[in-house]
């Protein structure tokens, strides 16, 4: 039997609209990812990153291609991944505790049992004293932490994180990046991470995928050399600076390709 990739995205294409107005969101997109790896996806706005995530999450069907996890197709099968978006999407009428166990209770787990299971993650994310609060009583960083714990509680080995820290201030973002690295390494999660921040991608990832737009496609795939966990100091290593330069240049070219005045 051939050596099978953990996550395989093969020949994925998706168009929106029809006839002359049809827009190719992604075209013939393929990559693989091994178990326990952290892959960041960078690309200009509108390059199809979120479409890719929606297809992997089983929320949207592609026009062609397939996505498999351990050889099993994920197409239109929601619930196979832990999906976290830029907005925390906490249910405002539920307490933090009831928000973080939402996935468990949807699958019939008793509340008390689900809470017991969630407590270590809540503690690791510094939420143990806030479990009885409502989301509007939390800061932006605390809300994102609660959303992260909720995503972890899905128990899914593959996490899709769509710009989860995009709306946070620099300090809070740094804390959450450290927390995410720590949690993912301890729990051996495989992560797909969308970001617009090159430093964030270099800090967190094992691999970085650069996407171009119109149509959305892969223009580079980097395997980062440095072992994790990384620190801000690690980012100053010559090889990472070199990669950062290349990524910035690729992104710049991609933006200028569509808008020469940018």
């Amino acid at each position: 039997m051939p050596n099978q990739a953990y996550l395989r995205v093969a020949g994925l294409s998706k168009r929106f609209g029809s006839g002359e107005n049809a827009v190719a969101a992604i075209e013939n997109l393929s990559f693989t990812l091994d178990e326990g790896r952290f892959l960041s996806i960078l690309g200009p706005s509108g390059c199809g990153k979120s479409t890719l995530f929606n297809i992997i999450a089983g929320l949207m069907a592609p026009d062609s291609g397939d996505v498999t996890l351990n050889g099993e197709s994920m197409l239109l099968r929601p619930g196979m991944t832990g999906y976290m978006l830029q907005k925390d999407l906490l249910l405002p009428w539920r307490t933090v505790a009831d928000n973080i166990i939402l996935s468990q209770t949807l699958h019939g787990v008793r509340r008390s049992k689900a809470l017991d299971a969630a407590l270590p993650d809540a503690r690791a994310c510094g939420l143990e004293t806030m479990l009885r609060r409502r989301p509007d009583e939390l800061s932006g960083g605390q809300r994102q932490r609660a959303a992260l714990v909720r995503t972890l509680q899905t128990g899914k080995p593959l996490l899709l994180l769509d710009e989860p820290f995009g709306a946070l201030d620099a300090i809070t973002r740094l804390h959450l990046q450290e927390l995410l690295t720590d949690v993912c390494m301890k729990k051996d999660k495989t992560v797909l991470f969308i970001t617009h921040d090159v430093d964030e991608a270099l800090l967190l990832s094992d691999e970085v995928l650069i996407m171009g737009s119109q149509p959305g496609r892969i223009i580079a795939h980097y395997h980062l050399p440095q072992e994790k966990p990384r620190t801000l100091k690690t980012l100053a290593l010559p090889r990472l600076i070199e990669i950062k330069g290349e990524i910035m240049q690729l992104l710049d070219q991609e933006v200028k390709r569509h808008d020469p005045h940018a």
Partner: protein
Amino acid sequence: MTRMHKARPLSMLMINAWRWGILLALILLWEAGSRMGLIDPFFFSSPRQIWDTAVIKWQSGQLWRDIAYTASSTILGFLLGTSIGSILGLLLWFSRRTALVAEPWMIVLNALPKLALAPVLVIWFGIGFSSKVVLAFLMTVIVSIMSAYSGVQTVDPALSTLMISLGAKRRQIFTRLVVPSAMPSIITGLRVNIALAMAGSIVGEFIASDRGLGRMIVYAGTTFDLKLVWVGVVVLSIVSVLMYAGVVLLERLLMHRWSARKPE
């Protein structure tokens, strides 16, 4: 030089003192005007005469029976109209097609003056209790459907996406996302609904009834017993205020459960 004005904290004690003070002053002015001949006591009665008439009616048991009759038809109509209307409005979430077909019907039915149906309903359901309940029900049900449906339309699509990504079934999205999201809209409609239900019951009693505060007012008016008319108006106002207060309490209890923020 700009002068900073500091807002003084409002004392609830002072506000309540003003509220009750105005009421007391109006009653005293009314009574004094009536005794001094500034107001015709035949047409406007006086607080003292209203009180005496109310005491006589209370002691005979008639006033209490009328209050109970009107209050129970109002509450029953309100509960049936609000709950059935809200459930129907919420269920529209399941079928966009049904909702689109129903929308113009809801607008037409809401605009229809339901009180104009009172004579027909009295013929259909008789002069007894049921015609009053049906009228109170009709007054509230369409408003409740519309409130619940507008609440359903406020559901954040991103939250629906999240629920689907977590593997939630359609029924679970309805019970755990749609219903709670629509609750503030439904709860906000309660205050309006209790007033509408009361209007329905009273008009039903005006048309034809053998009991109730509405019947008491019509009967007293036709026999020129204007003191009793005023008793009816005052008692009806008190009953309305008590029901409104009850709904506000219910609203607070429900909001505590469903609103984003815990009440202070």
